[in-house]
């Protein structure tokens, strides 16, 4: 019985350590991918909440952090899908002439280019460049093959290169 009491705080400590170590980098990278800090925080918090309620099982995995990141990335994809559906619905409803104010100018050219990237490329680039993950870790998080991740990274880099090069 004493062992059980000791085991519970240990698990809790492990979760706390994992949270302290990984929450910030995950939110930062996903915030870059989503372009919205709130969305990124929601996704990562939801992933950690799911990990917390089943931490007994998740902590026995080879890579608990990878599991949490994978859940967060999936939530991010759901968010992108939701945005996509909302955009299509909005386009359908725009049959009548509606005065739409111009979008505010992007303060950062790199951010504007990043916003034009497809979701997969954005997530791959954010995880690879911001959270400094390896291609394999990005592949695990996105549930893709390494070749697919390389493809997305290559495409993203080719697009973003224009934003970094000085304009003539």
């Amino acid at each position: 019985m004493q062992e059980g009491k000791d085991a519970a705080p240990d698990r809790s400590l492990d979760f706390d350590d994992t949270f302290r170590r990984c929450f910030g980098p995950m939110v930062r990278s996903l915030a870059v991918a989503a372009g919205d800090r709130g969305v990124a925080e929601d996704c990562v918090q939801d992933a950690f909440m799911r990990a917390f309620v089943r931490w007994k099982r998740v902590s026995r995995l080879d890579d608990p952090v990878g599991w949490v990141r994978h859940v967060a990335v999936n939530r991010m994809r759901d968010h992108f899908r939701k945005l996509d559906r909302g955009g299509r619905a909005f386009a359908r409803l725009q049959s009548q002439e509606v005065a739409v104010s111009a979008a505010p100018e992007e303060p950062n050219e790199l951010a504007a280019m990043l916003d034009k990237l497809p979701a997969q490329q954005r997530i791959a680039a954010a995880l690879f460049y911001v959270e400094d993950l390896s291609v394999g870790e990005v592949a695990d998080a996105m549930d893709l093959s390494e070749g697919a991740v390389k493809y997305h990274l290559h495409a993203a880099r080719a697009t973003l290169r224009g934003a970094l090069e000085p304009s003539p």
Partner: protein
Amino acid sequence: MTFESFDDPELDGALSSGLSALAPELEPADTVLNELRPRFQRARRRRRVVQTSAAMTALLVIGGVAFAEAPVARRSHVTVESPDRHTDTTHKPTPSTSAHPTTTTPKPRNLSAGSAPTSTSQHTQVLPTVTPTTAAPTSDYPPSSATTPPPTSAVHVVPPPTHPLTPTTVPLPKPVRYYSYAGSVLVRLVHGQMLLLQVLPKDGYVGDVHVKRPLKIDVWFNRHGQMVSRVELIVVDGHIKQIRHSTFASDQGKTWDGRRVMVAGVAAGHHGTACPSKPLTKPAAQVASGPVSRSGDSDATASDKSDSSVA
């Protein structure tokens, strides 16, 4: 960043720094964790509730399925469901003893939880001389027809009760035994509903409760897998009536209890074959053990002869 296909480290470095600069600055993780901890706890409680509910639902479903399957399983095991079979020690009189055979009817068990009888009620109901107000109603017996001799009450000899009567006890109706060529059925009428107490097939026969409802009981007696006789009872106006008492196949033409056994299809509508006071044809030891099917050495003809001699 060890992506080997990237041959431009400067571009990678610029992208890394540029994208990192876009990342927001966050609060310390400890602060966020403390804020999120109640939410995490609530989520864990919700998950446990869901798991418990799912487990209980599964148990209920399994229990319901098992309960639904139970009657079918009982029917496949043939016959007697009454706990009375172990206590019924009715003796069959031998022809050589006397004209007044002695029948001992011990106190039966309380059969159902809904019935109100107590343990003292059985003696009070079979002895009308003790307290007439608590005597068992004799109207439960089916009316005797002209072809059926009325049961003689003299065959029942019940010892007097050894304990004082309780005025608040409600007597149980007296169980009634209905006979067929191949066996007998013991039922009791309680609150206008029949309770099947015992199915007692003769040697070589197997009893099969075909219908067992509060207002109708149909018991088939089979031999070698074929139904040769059946006892069908219904409740009409608060009385048990035997509407079928038939014999089939090779048992046609044999006699039982001094009467001609009816053949198949002729028995419907026949009344009055109930013999509440008729003694059973089984020895007490066999009856007490409550066998349902026996592969006895005596055939049906021998049983008929003994029955006829008793009658």
